[in-house]
């Protein structure tokens, strides 16, 4: 597919309906071990309100986990409690202790070009696709490449 043409298409046009069944998702009160287990195979996991729900409330990425498993290192100026979240020190117990709550999202009506620009500006490699509060899919660099190269 032509890249320019892809930029003009909407998210809903390229989103595979079956994708939702394969999204990495877990509820916010899940144990951190379960989260880590998912991240052994995936590079992120979406956090939802409760089991069976699709109400999106956070994300944990591999870079968050990297900070959790590396030897603890505090920045020069410490404010708030986020730097005290640690696997080694038992303060990272549940998914909600580690997740990022403020998410940059996209909607099924957004154009792919806009979504990619948002990803570049925000330094993100994946965006959740949401309708209302619920996650209905995700746009990742891998997924876009597959579409571009006709592998989907």
């Amino acid at each position, binding site marked *: 597919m032509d890249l320019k043409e892809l930029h003009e298409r909407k998210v809903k046009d390229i989103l595979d309906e079956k994708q939702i069944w394969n999204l990495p998702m877990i509820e916010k009160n899940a144990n951190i071990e379960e989260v880590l287990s998912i991240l052994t195979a995936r590079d992120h996991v979406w956090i939802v309100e409760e089991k069976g729900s699709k109400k999106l409330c956070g994300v944990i990425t591999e870079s968050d986990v990297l900070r959790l498993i590396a030897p*603890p290192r*505090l*920045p*020069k*100026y*410490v*404010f*708030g*409690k*986020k*730097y*005290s979240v*640690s696997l080694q*020190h*038992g*303060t990272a117990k549940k998914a909600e202790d580690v997740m*990022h*709550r*403020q*998410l*940059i*999202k996209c909607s099924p009506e957004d154009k792919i070009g*806009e979504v990619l620009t948002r990803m570049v*500006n*925000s*330094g993100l490699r994946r965006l959740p696709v949401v309708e209302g509060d619920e996650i209905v899919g995700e746009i990742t660099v891998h997924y876009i490449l597959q579409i571009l190269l006709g592998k989907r």
Partner: protein
Amino acid sequence: MLLEIGIALLLAKILGHAMERIRQPAVIGEIIAGIVVGPFILGEFFGMKYLSPVTEGLGQIGIILLLFISGLEIGLDEIKAAGKNGMITSMFDVAVAFFFGYIAGYLLGYDVRTSIAIGNILVATSVGITVRTLMEMHALHSKVGELILTVAVLDDVLGILVLSFTLGRGEPALLIAKVALFFLIFVCVAFLINKIRDVKLHIPRFMLTAALSFSFIFSALAHDLGLAAITGSFFGGLALSNLPQRRRINEFVRQMGENFFIPLFFIWVGASFDFYALKDIGPLVLLFIPMALLGKIIGCSTGARLCGFKARDAFAVGVGMMPRMEVALVVVTTEITMGIFNETLAHQVLAATILLVIISSFITPVALKIVYKGEENQHSE
């Protein structure tokens, strides 16, 4: 001046790292770097002139960024999640720490406004030293550790609030109205930002520049309303803390602040350290430092005890809350800039605060380890 800034930044980086190697905060290294480049060492022997309106201005920008980062990182969500125990202990902590500072000023014969200013310096605890110590002791997840962290977060917020009410300029009734107006604007802005956060603007990285600009505008607003500019930057950070771009904004401001403006503030603090002030500082230090340490121990222990903590656990909470660092230095510098102290007293209070920062930073890890050891023994008995 360019040479002085270059040398100061390099020295601050090296001494900051050296301090971290001996498990002390880098800020102390940055202050020492300031003392070295200041008028008493490199100034005296090599004729360097670090202190100038330009370096002071750069340091003032550092203060705004520091408090903005603080508000952004603490965030409204952490305040909401503080819980009853944290709130109660924090209120006792802030009230007693402030009162002890005020009493120290009163006993030294200072007027009410000066005594209040001393009380303000003692309110905010530095979370960094305590987190580091709790990590070393593997006590971060304990209920003592959890309460210390929550209270340390809350007392930054309460400390800035107390500062707004006690040091604002103007008649009391008018001041209350101005503080109320500032917080009304804060609530409205926080609400509006939450509503318009998904607005699409086609200016690349607009949000980062807008956030930075917002921190200065909010600081100016607070200043123009007669409050301290730092109140504005702190609450400006809090107002943006629910944005989806929070992490990105934080990284951006930290990059700029942590590597340039904020070290320049601590260097400026060190360079302003007046060795002549040490001559007459005895009575101030003898009251100021013990009152600073005792205020936290008594305030937090009482609060924690009322929340159902055992006596020794409550005591450990008080001990863990003793360190003062970034915010105390910001508050004292702001008060000096506001002209609250006369010139001699300004040098003495700044020197006393620097000594408090260093002493509290060195004794808290040792004291907390002694108290916590006692707590472990108590549990094993």
